[in-house]
């Protein structure tokens, strides 16, 4: 007997011989979850006794030993049927639990599976009915065949190191293992992932929400098929679009995807079609919104712009204005970042010489960091009066600039198409850096930060305010603006010109040579007012956006809290039901106890010992008598 066992088991023992480490066995495709190293959820669910920690005689380690032994035993000779009685003599433990494990393994075809046995006889596409299982035998490598490692020895104590990684270590180290607790993601998975209530698949592109309580969701497929669920009709559902830029729903980005996005942004700049192509798994709008949300995304974009010099930053500004509203904070940082980068560029280009710097780079100079502007704004107001005097000297400089500006304009007209893409705003501000007048710089700086329309409105408001003080300026400005308008229309055809007021400030100078009518202090005041107005408008805009964002977030929070409360209520109801049940049980017990007591009392009375209560009181009576 004994020797024969040894012979049979021999193939398993020489673990060091690699030829024996892997062998092919056929198991049903449905049992593909099986792994020597792990215990699958199916096993845990089917054989709860081994995983609920009710007894130390049944634990995952013991189960694994049982399982591995039984399967190995079967695979010694897969052609014969392994019987339970053959297995149980070799295993220590309650035969009933052993039987359960055995039947489980048999049910899943891990043992006593004869699907591939007579594969030579049965050809492809022939479905063989064997017992409970439908077996499909195919030519070539059937999908049911899996290469599995045979445990190196029969003693799981000496299991290979790989087992003690992963789950194996948990099972090996601890005798008791609590059943897996339902985690947060289990409970809230439907909320997080928007899983269809019917088919349990993820709703990718959109879903229908049950409007009555908003708790159940079905996917488009189920909706079309008409499977609405119990007591629900087609009218109860509302379509919800799931495209990622749909407000509160944020597409999930893996780290790899984000990395890919960043790389492709560096490579392609803001050519989002190419970027999206590169990222593959995400759409164009998703890529854009992701990059904007990244804390450093704009820096990337900024440097990308450096490479593509001739790209239209202004149009980007406008685009930004359109795309951004849901996420204002990054927008601000973005501005800072660009400015920093551009300041560096400025330094470089200035070194290169003035002639070169007349190109696009100087435009960046105008956008100084806003952080400065706080101080300078203070200065601005403080220096207001002081500035008046020194500024009298300025005209000479201005005239210089004027000539420069004229040159520039000529240049620009020559450049034609190429520079057509250059933002008009930056054109306006070109001469400014060379102006030593800090006030002007502040104005351009601030007005560059806000949108052109805002700056225009602010300037207009400033001018009208000034006009109220004094009648003359109005005429001056009016005449200027008329001239400007003409100039503008002749210069370029771009409709979205920068602020008229600003224009008037800048472009007034060429006219000045002819008229030289506008007193400088007045212009100073107009400029200051414009700057302040623009800044205020911008601040207001930001505040509104911020407000909206806060509102949105608060509503999300409230919604989430409500859902949480709903869940809690449900749980409480359940608990209440359980308590009620228990109460009923308790009352039943109480009743039975009372009945029993009654019975006893009755018996006692029937037994004629009813006067036992009187007896102890008699001595007292006597005592009283004595007393």
């Amino acid at each position, binding site marked *: *007997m*004994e020797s024969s*066992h*040894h012979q049979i088991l021999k193939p398993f023992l020489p673990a060091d011989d690699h030829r024996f480490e892997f062998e092919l066995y056929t198991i049903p495709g449905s049992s593909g979850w099986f792994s020597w190293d792990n215990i699958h959820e199916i096993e845990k669910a089917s054989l709860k006794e081994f995983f609920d920690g*009710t*007894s*130390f*005689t049944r*634990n995952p*380690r*013991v189960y694994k*030993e*049982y399982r591995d*032994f039984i399967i190995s035993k079967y695979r010694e000779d897969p052609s014969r049927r392994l*019987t*339970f*009685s*053959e297995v*149980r*003599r*070799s*295993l*220590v*433990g*309650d*035969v*009933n*639990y052993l*039987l359960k494990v055995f039947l489980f393994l048999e049910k899943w075809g891990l043992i006593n599976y004869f699907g591939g046995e007579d594969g030579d006889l049965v050809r492809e596409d022939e479905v063989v009915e064997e017992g409970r299982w439908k077996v499909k035998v195919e030519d070539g490598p059937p999908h049911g065949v899996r290469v599995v490692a045979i445990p190196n020895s*029969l*003693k*799981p*104590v000496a299991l290979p190191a790989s087992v003690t990684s992963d789950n194996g270590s948990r099972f090996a180290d601890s*005798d008791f293992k609590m059943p897996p607790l339902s985690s947060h993601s289990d409970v809230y998975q439907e909320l997080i992932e928007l899983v269809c209530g019917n088919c349990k698949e993820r709703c990718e592109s959109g879903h229908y929400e049950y409007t009555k309580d908003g708790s159940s969701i079905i996917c488009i497929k189920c909706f079309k098929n008409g499977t609405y669920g119990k007591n629900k009709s087609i009218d109860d559902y509302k379509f919800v679009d799931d495209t990622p830029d749909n407000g509160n729903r944020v597409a999930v980005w893996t780290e790899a995807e984000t990395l890919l996005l960043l790389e492709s942004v560096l490579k392609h700049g803001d050519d989002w079609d190419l970027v999206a192509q590169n990222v593959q798994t995400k759409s164009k709008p998703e890529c854009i919104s992701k990059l904007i949300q990244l804390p450093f995304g704009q820096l990337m974009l900024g440097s990308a712009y450096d490479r593509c010099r001739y790209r239209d930053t202004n149009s980007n500004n406008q685009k930004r204005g359109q795309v951004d509203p849901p996420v204002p904070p990054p927008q601000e940082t973005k501005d800072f970042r660009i400015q920093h980068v551009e300041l560096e560029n400025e330094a470089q280009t200035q070194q290169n010489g003035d002639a070169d710097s007349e190109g696009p780079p100087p435009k960046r100079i105008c956008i100084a960091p806003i952080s400065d502007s706080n101080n300078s704004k203070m200065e601005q107001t403080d220096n207001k009066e002081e500035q008046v005097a020194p500024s009298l000297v300025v005209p000479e400089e201005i005239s210089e600039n004027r000539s420069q500006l004229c040159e520039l304009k000529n240049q620009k007209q020559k450049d034609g198409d190429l520079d057509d893409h250059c933002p008009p705003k930056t054109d306006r501000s070109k001469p400014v850096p060379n102006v030593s007048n800090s006030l002007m710089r502040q104005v351009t700086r601030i007005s560059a930060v806000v949108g052109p329309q805002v700056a225009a409105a602010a300037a207009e408001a400033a001018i009208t305010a000034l006009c109220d003080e004094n009648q003359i300026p109005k005429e001056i400005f009016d005449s200027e603006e008329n001239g400007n308008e003409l100039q503008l229309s002749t210069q370029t055809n771009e409709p979205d010109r920068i602020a008229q007021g600003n224009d008037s400030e800048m472009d007034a100078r060429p006219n000045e040579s002819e008229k030289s009518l506008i007193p400088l202090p007045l212009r100073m005041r107009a400029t200051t007012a414009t700057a302040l107005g623009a800044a205020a408008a911008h601040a207001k805009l930001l505040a509104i956006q911020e407000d909206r964002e806060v509102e949105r977030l608060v509503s999300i929070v409230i919604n989430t809290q409500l859902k949480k409360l709903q869940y809690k209520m449900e749980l409480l109801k359940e608990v209440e039901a359980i308590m009620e*049940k228990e109460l009923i*049980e308790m009352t039943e017990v109480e009743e039975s106890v009372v009945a029993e007591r009654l019975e006893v009392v009755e018996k006692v009375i029937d037994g004629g010992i009813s006067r036992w209560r009187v007896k102890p009181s008699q001595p007292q009576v006597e005592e009283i008598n004595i007393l």
Partner: protein
Amino acid sequence: MPDSSAFGVAKTHTHSILRDQERVYHNMKPHPAWSSLRNPVKFRIPTADNLVPIRLDIDIDGQRFRDTFTWNPSDPDSDVILFAKRTVKDLKLPPAFVTQIAQSIQSQLTEFRSFEGQDMYTGEKIVPIKLDLRVNHTLIKDQFLWDLNNFESDPEEFARIFCEDLGVEDPEVGPAIAFAIREQLCEIAIQSVASARETRINKKGRRGAEHLPLSKPGGSALDTLKLFGNKSSVIRKRREWDLYEPIVDLLSNEEVDALEAREA
């Protein structure tokens, strides 16, 4: 041998009541998971069905009637006399057997019921069950472990698979194996009631002596710690395999006669 038909009667009888019995059980214990195994359980046969093994061996005027079957203790006692009458009629036994059979069953039931309602300690107890029986021409020897905490165990199913695996054709063998298991389990259960009582008395007698090991109930229980501890494998050493291997022998008529002669 009148055994077979008597078996048939007993079998059908128990199965008809089984459902009632289950319902009673579930009503009484709505939360079986709540009752920890470490706490004492009320006395019952530690299997899925709380059935009492009944063994009859009645000899009247040289006519001997021997039978074994299980009985549901929650059945009304009036069934006992009906069953006795039916058995006597089916097996064409003399009418004197009716009262004898009824009395025997009744007394065994009463004994069983006397333990009901008492605590029994089963905590972490796995007992070896030894089979050594002869049914007609089949001789069976076997040994295996049984968990007293497993209230879902099914000796009948175990016996069925035993016969299937070992190719036993005699239909009487299965029920006989199941009965043998039940009989041993019943005995162990009664022992653990006694030991539970004993420990209670001990506790009352000398307080603070609780650290003393609760006197090993049944005595035959295995050292589960040693068997299932981390250090030992649940796979038996190969030399023990034969010890726990089921053995089925078919005897010839002569051998059976010889054995019966010796038993008598």
